[in-house]
């Protein structure tokens, strides 16, 4: 394993595996977010129910929010490995070419050339994003614990939050359009018979992810999703939901 | 000096090689690493020899002038390699391959050598396959074969149109495996400039490190020259730019005899020359003649596009003159026939030196798809070079110098007249007589390298010899000679690049010592070469700097040897007053223009001895005897 990590191909394989984990998480996250589309749905918005479910998952085997913490650990680990891998590779790759001679672009996609940039910006976005919706530190619009629908609704009434999220999604698109195809190649899962399909598949999956995420801020902002009940009512509703 | 014995083992032809193998002496495995062999060249012959000797445990030093051993000229061979495996169930056999090769060479080769070659041919295929050479396969996974110029059976194995490449990469990787194992060392970008002879035996070489310009000395117990052929003496040839005669010629100057130097092969299917600036000619594989039909317009100066020339105004000269072989006539015959029609003013193309190779009928009969599968990459290559699409208009081809049947004289053990100096592959004169059949050079280079010299050199190494050090005075003398030759080249101080003289030499050689030769022409050539040589030594300019990377010096050095070789070729062609194979003397032809051999006087190998810069080379004859084939007039009619 250590030797594997030391080699260029091994390192790249780690990047690909962690990338896959991150993509997997994104898909789940997107599906979760799409629960908002059900709207406030009376007492408990469906997305809030989902958030609660996430935390209860595995109970009583796991403590409250145990599964969530496992997921968080995996994600954090993946991001760290992913970034360490790409940074180390980048240094190697830079050494392999004389400094003053950038390689002319012959046919490579521009996305492939900006993976580092799109990745770093993504990292910045993720930090900001967690500060906003998870720790509720970026408390510009009213934010309340465990009231996802409420938080989203309020945040996405502001055009600049919508803009930040849409830009982040474009970054995701850029990163993944190369990334998803690339991971298949890195893992050596390609074959001449499948390659065309893999290319299309990567682009489609990227689109699905980007559009799937984008629906949420857009629909909130355009007002197609109704305002949630005021917070107090929701709390009782949750309590009711938990006991009932 | 008398020509030494060719050391052909007694006994029936079929058993000679086995008999030799059975009696040869061996070096014990523990003693082998102390015995060193130098191999010059990493083509098929050199790489296979170096890999095989190293695998046996001998210490091998291998040299080539390219930047990697994988780039040796053998890489360019396209068509295929012969072996008498008879997978096609046509009754092919060692005897048949032997007989075809003897006849193909117009009965100017040694029976014993040719038999051994045919015998070893099968092992070569087995060896190559084991190395991972991807020969073409039939459905069902069996090896595929095809027929190739001048034979009636399908015994040619091939890897698309890149057989030489694949075989060479096989030998190269076997060599690299030995490098990794520590048994062999490869010195690339090193050019051998002299052999070192101690007590009458070849014991080392002087090489120039082409990167640093340093003159290095290397000592060994035996030296193998696998330095390839010399057809670049014609300037334009199908050989790689770097192919040269230097290694062989420097050995010749030390007493190794040069046999049949005038036997050169002009290959019939090459892309014609398009201008003065051209640096080399490109071969189009002979396999094209399996489906392409060769013709010229019946009327001279007919400049209609070929498609508009009606059938009855086309002169399919090969089919008319050689009905049974037709377009598949051997190379020397097909080449000369092309020259004859062009000399008669029927040639096509801007220079009038071209004939059509037409696939119209093949496409009509078999369909474009089939033609594409068979020749797709060759058509692409043709289009890439000429800008014309051979599916639509016929290819234009013309003969070009291609292969040297002549070379250093060797005995049955492939040893030259200098003990301890062996010559293999195209560098020796051995197996092809006066003309080489298609797909047999690869066979010979690999038979020599894999299966013959590893035994004969090992045998040579059994003798006890004192180890020599590179401080031996013989090395001093050799190095001094090399240095002073370089100084001489550097000091001419003229104005012209070596290329200019090379081009002039090539023109003379092609005109007078090419596809057709005659006494007055050869005399004239000798005078003209003399003049070129004088000009060379008074008007040459090489870049300054001998202790550095200097390509103009490398080139000039090679041309200086070509100039001397050219003279010897003309002398040899003059002396051989007969026509045989690739050597066609216009004075000796049958009534219908075919080669007329003189077996009484010339069933011989002529080996030339060097006599110093001013002396006239002395010929020595080796009588050939034919006990197993009938000396017949070669007929492909």
């Amino acid at each position: 394993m250590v030797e594997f990590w030391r080699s260029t191909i091994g390192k790249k394989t780690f990047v690909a595996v962690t990338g896959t984990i991150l993509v997997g998480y994104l898909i789940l996250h997107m599906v979760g977010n799409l629960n908002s589309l059900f709207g406030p749905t009376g007492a408990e918005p469906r997305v809030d129910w989902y958030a609660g479910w996430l935390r209860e998952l595995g109970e009583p085997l796991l403590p409250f929010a145990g599964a969530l913490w496992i997921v968080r650990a995996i994600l954090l680990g993946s991001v760290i490995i992913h970034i360490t891998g790409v940074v180390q590779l980048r240094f190697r790759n830079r050494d392999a070419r004389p400094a003053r001679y950038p390689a002319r672009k012959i046919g490579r996609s521009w996305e492939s050339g900006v993976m580092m940039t799109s990745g770093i910006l993504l990292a910045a976005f993720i930090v900001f994003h967690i500060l906003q919706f998870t720790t509720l530190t970026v408390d510009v619009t009213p934010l309340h614990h465990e009231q996802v629908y409420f938080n989203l609704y309020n945040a996405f009434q502001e055009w600049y939050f919508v803009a930040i999220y849409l830009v982040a999604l474009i970054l995701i698109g850029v990163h993944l359009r190369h990334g998803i195809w690339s991971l298949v190649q890195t893992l050596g899962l390609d074959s001449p018979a499948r390659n065309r399909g893999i290319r299309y598949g990567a682009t489609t999956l990227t689109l699905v992810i980007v559009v799937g995420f984008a629906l949420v801020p857009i629909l909130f902002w355009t007002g197609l999703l109704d305002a949630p009940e005021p917070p107090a009512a929701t709390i009782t509703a949750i309590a009711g939901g938990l006991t009932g | 000096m008398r020509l030494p014995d060719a050391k052909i083992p007694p006994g029936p032809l079929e058993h000679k090689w086995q008999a030799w193998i059975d009696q040869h002496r061996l070096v014990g495995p523990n003693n082998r690493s102390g015995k060193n062999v130098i191999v010059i060249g990493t083509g098929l012959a050199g790489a296979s020899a170096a890999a095989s000797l190293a695998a046996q445990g001998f210490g091998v030093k291998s040299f080539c002038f390219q930047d990697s051993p994988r780039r040796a000229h053998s890489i360019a061979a396209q068509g295929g390699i012969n072996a008498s495996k008879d997978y096609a169930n046509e009754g092919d056999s060692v005897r048949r391959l032997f007989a075809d090769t003897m006849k193909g060479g117009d009965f100017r080769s040694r029976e014993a050598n040719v038999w051994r070659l045919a015998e070893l041919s099968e092992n070569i295929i087995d060896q190559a396959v084991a190395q991972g050479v991807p020969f073409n396969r039939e459905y069902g996974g069996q090896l595929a074969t095809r027929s190739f110029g001048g034979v009636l059976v399908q015994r040619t194995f091939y890897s698309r149109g890149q057989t030489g490449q694949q075989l060479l990469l096989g030998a190269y990787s076997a060599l690299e495996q030995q490098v990794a194992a520590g048994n062999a060392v490869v010195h690339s970008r090193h050019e051998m400039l002299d052999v070192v002879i101690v007590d009458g035996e070849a014991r080392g070489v002087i090489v120039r490190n082409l990167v640093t310009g340093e003159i290095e000395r290397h000592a060994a117990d035996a030296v193998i020259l696998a330095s390839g052929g010399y057809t670049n003496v014609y300037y334009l040839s199908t050989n790689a730019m770097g192919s040269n005669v230097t290694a062989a010629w420097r050995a010749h100057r030390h007493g190794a005899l040069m046999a049949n130097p005038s036997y050169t092969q002009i290959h019939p299917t090459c892309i014609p020359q398009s201008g003065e600036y051209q640096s080399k000619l490109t071969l189009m594989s002979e396999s094209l003649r399996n489906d392409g039909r060769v013709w010229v317009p019946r009327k001279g100066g007919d400049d209609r596009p070929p498609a508009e020339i009606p059938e009855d105004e086309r002169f399919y000269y090969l089919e008319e003159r050689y009905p049974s072989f037709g377009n598949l006539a051997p190379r020397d015959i097909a080449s000369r026939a092309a020259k004859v029609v062009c000399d008669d003013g029927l040639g096509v193309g801007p220079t009038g030196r071209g004939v059509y190779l037409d696939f119209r009928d093949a496409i009509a009969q078999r369909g474009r798809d089939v033609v594409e599968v068979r020749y797709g990459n060759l058509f692409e290559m043709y289009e890439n070079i000429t800008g014309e699409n051979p599916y639509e208009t016929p290819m234009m081809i013309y003969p070009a110098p291609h292969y040297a049947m002549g070379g250093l004289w060797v005995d049955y053990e492939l040893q030259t007249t200098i003990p301890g100096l062996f010559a293999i592959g195209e560098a020796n004169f051995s197996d092809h007589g006066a003309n080489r059949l298609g797909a047999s050079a690869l066979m010979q280079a690999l038979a020599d390298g894999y299966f013959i010299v590893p035994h004969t050199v090992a045998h040579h190494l059994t003798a006890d010899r004192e180890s020599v050090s590179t401080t031996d005075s013989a090395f001093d003398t050799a190095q001094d000679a090399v240095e002073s030759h370089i100084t001489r080249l550097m000091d001419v101080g003229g104005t012209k690049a070596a290329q200019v003289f090379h081009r002039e030499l090539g023109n003379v050689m092609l005109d007078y010592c090419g596809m057709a030769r005659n006494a007055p022409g050869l005399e004239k050539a000798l005078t003209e070469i003399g003049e070129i040589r004088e000009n060379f030594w008074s008007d040459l300019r090489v870049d300054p700097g001998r202790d550095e990377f200097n390509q103009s010096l490398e080139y000039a050095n090679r041309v200086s040897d070509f100039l001397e070789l050219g003279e010897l070729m003309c002398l040899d062609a003059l002396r051989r007053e007969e026509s045989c194979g690739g050597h066609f003397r216009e004075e000796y032809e049958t009534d219908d223009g075919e080669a007329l051999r003189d077996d009484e006087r010339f069933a011989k190998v002529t080996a030339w001895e060097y006599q110093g810069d001013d002396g006239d080379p002395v010929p020595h004859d080796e009588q050939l005897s034919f006990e197993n084939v009938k000396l017949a007039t070669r007929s492909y009619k």
Partner: protein
Amino acid sequence: MNFTLEIWRQFDTGEEGRYEDFTVEGIDPEASFLEMLDQLNERLTEEERRTVAFDSDCREGICGTCSLVINDTPHGPRQVTSCQTYMRDFEDGATIRVEPFRSTTFPVIRDLVTDRSALDRVIQAGGYTGATTGPQPEPNSMPVAPEVQEKAMDAAICIGCGACVAACPNGAAMLFTGAKVTHLNLLPQGQAERGNRANSMVEQMDEEGFGGCTNFGECSRVCPQEISLDVIGMLNREYRKARLSRDPKDPPTMLAQ
């Protein structure tokens, strides 16, 4: 045809290089790029100036010796070797930039000549089957389906030119190494060393200082032999399997009952 050439001049490995301008006139459109350089060199000789060093041998696209970067593209505009690039591919009067293959692993020897021996060392690490000279099995006893042969051949035709390295923004030799591993690992004759081959060739590739692959795909776009990126997928797969499977040097021991 007339051209202005901006040619990279560098005296030796250590020296700083620079571009030098030359004009060439009256070039035949059918002349190859290298023949055009020959003509330039002949003229430079007459003018008693140092000739431009460049590598070539076969001049028919098979030996892999020629190695120019023409107008920023390794080998030139048409995805054929430098020697197969013809002047008719350029516009009359054009300015053409000529430089050596650029890679830290290919130090410049002089002008346009580089040292690509790193590629040989990658082959030394495992680019062979273990067969040494001697009696071998009858080839037809190990049939190879034509499709497998074709695939192996598609990879085996790599000419070792190194253009893939020169084109790769990471200076990676993945296409070259992948081609050899694909060729041998597909064939039955290459099975015995299959895992070791992938391991040691990749190790050597890294040791030489080639970069890592980020799947840019430029290598395959300049490859004169049109080697497909699939060989990189194959190399990744073979290496991963070999590295992550049990160390062959340490096989499970058999237990006596």
